[in-house]
């Protein structure tokens, strides 16, 4: 029998420390929907999604009630839509946008929070369909509410496709301009990846990869608040104790994720994919990754020592979580989305946290430059160069990196942009004022890096 202390510890984690399941994401393959006629494709896509995901939200809510664990999001990820665009007869941007609208309708019909997979993987080259899909992203994201998009522009094995990087700078800029009334909100739904993973349950970067099956359940756990509270109990102790405490906590959190993932998969009659053991912050009080780093002894997140603290945290989360789940996957680590983390917001506002420091932090944590608002007059070339830098970090370190920046139209350094909900509040952060245009316009590919002689 479980003892009272353990029971009350779990109840306290949920009640007071914001422990939750961040997302149950159902991956649905749309390969069977490909065809030459756009109307037929849209009908097949809609029918397939609404058939498979019909009970997803209800099942999530049932589990939430029975186990008393909050499940914040129910989402869907699909096969990269560029695959469908390539199969169309005479594909156009407008036909691609029709598919995006279909995804949006299907997502609304089944009641999920987001649907991801309006994506293309172009790390080595671009097919005509992929180029059309990428060009359609600003229109697609401005005309839909729940659709999320991602583009993979680099990988450790292929190098970085600088033509795609150059194009994505323009696309991010256009997406912001087309949603100027909501301060560039479309960019919050668009991620540019290097080494994108195929089973990520988190948005905006979720899609169902080429090697995945027909339908799968992936679960993302969260719990920065729980880790922060656990570290409060070991104030002043050495890093061995800190790492051990994070590991123990990550283990418990992940076990909960594993339980929910298995339960959801069996109730829905689909395969269980992976548990993504990421510390995903929200703007809520007590749910911040930055505050964990500060608990380790840093006055403000972003000061010297932050990268080391994050490296320890990220590694300990993985070590603790890996043993707790049969299948770990996705991004698994610590997320550092600036606008979604109360501690990061405060650190950016007071100048402790800069874009350069964030870039260094992405070398040791799970994703990249995430939810960062930059001035509205940032050029497309500068955005491309930011993407190239981040992709280079991912490529060389054999890890996933990503860029999700929002060049909010009209916003200047020091302004605050409100997105609301889980997407939070973004202080506008300065970018380097010197041009990278000559670098970006060269085009071509940066070759894949050497994987030996590592120093």
């Amino acid at each position, binding site marked *: *029998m*479980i003892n*009272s202390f*353990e*029971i*009350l510890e*779990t*109840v306290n984690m*949920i*009640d007071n420390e914001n422990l939750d399941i961040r997302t149950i994401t159902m991956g649905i393959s749309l390969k069977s929907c490909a065809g030459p006629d756009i109307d037929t494709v849209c009908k097949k896509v809609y029918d397939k999604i609404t058939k498979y995901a019909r009970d997803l939200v209800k099942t999530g809510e049932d589990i939430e*009630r*029975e*186990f*008393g*664990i909050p499940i914040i999001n129910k989402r869907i990820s699909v096969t990269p839509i560029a695959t469908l665009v390539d199969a169309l007869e005479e594909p156009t941007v407008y036909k691609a946008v029709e598919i995006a609208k279909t995804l949006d309708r299907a997502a609304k019909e089944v009641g999920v929070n987001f649907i991801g997979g309006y994506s293309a993987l172009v790390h080595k080259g671009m097919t005509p369909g992929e180029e059309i899909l990428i060009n359609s992203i600003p229109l697609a994201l401005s005309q839909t509410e729940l659709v999320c998009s991602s583009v993979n522009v680099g990988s450790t094995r292929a190098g970085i496709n600088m033509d795609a990087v150059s194009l994505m700078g323009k696309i991010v800029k256009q997406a912001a301009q087309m949603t100027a009334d909501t301060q560039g909100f479309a960019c919050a739904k668009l991620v540019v990846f290097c080494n994108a993973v195929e089973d990520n349950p988190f948005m905006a970067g979720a899609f169902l990869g080429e090697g995945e099956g027909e339908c799968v359940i992936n679960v993302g756990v969260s719990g920065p608040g729980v880790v922060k509270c656990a570290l409060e109990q070991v104030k002043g102790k050495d890093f061995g104790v800190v790492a051990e405490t994070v590991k123990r906590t990550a283990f*418990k959190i992940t*076990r*909960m994720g*594993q*339980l929910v993932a298995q339960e959801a998969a069996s109730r829905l009659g689909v395969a269980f994919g992976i548990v993504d053991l990421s510390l995903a912050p929200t703007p809520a009080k007590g749910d911040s990754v930055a505050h964990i780093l500060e608990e380790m002894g840093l006055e403000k997140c972003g000061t010297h020592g932050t990268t080391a603290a994050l490296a320890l945290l990220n590694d300990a989360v993985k070590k603790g979580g890996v043993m707790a789940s049969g299948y770990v996957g996705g991004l698994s680590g610590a997320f550092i989305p600036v606008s979604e983390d109360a501690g990061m917001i405060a650190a950016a506002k007071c100048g402790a946290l800069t874009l350069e420091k964030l870039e260094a932090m992405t070398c040791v944590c799970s994703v990249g430059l995430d939810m960062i608002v930059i001035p509205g007059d940032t050029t497309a070339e500068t955005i491309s160069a930011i993407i190239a830098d981040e992709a280079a970090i991912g490529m060389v370190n054999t890890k996933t990196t990503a860029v999700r920046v929002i060049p909010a139209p009209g916003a200047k350094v020091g302004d605050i942009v409100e997105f609301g909900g889980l997407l939070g509040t973004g202080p506008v952060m300065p970018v380097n004022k010197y041009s990278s245009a000559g670098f970006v316009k060269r085009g071509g590919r940066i070759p894949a890096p050497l994987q030996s002689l590592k120093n």
Partner: protein
Amino acid sequence: MKAIVTVVGHDQKGIIAKTSMTLFEQGVNILDISQTIMQDMFTMIMLIEYDSSVSINKLNESLNEIEKEMGLSIHIQREELFTSMHRI
């Protein structure tokens, strides 16, 4: 199926009576109870057993009523949650 009911709040008359009566009315069997006062707070943990004829939704609603009426915090959670988190 087994579940754990936790009741935490200011001590007052009738907490155990009302909670166990509600469980009884809904056809739930109580297997074990432990109760203590921690930092002036009444804390009770019950291990309960129920079959598929019991509606978790209805049970939750009834416990919510007691929660509001007496100013308590009541949770009902499947036992597997705790065993998976605290046992390897």
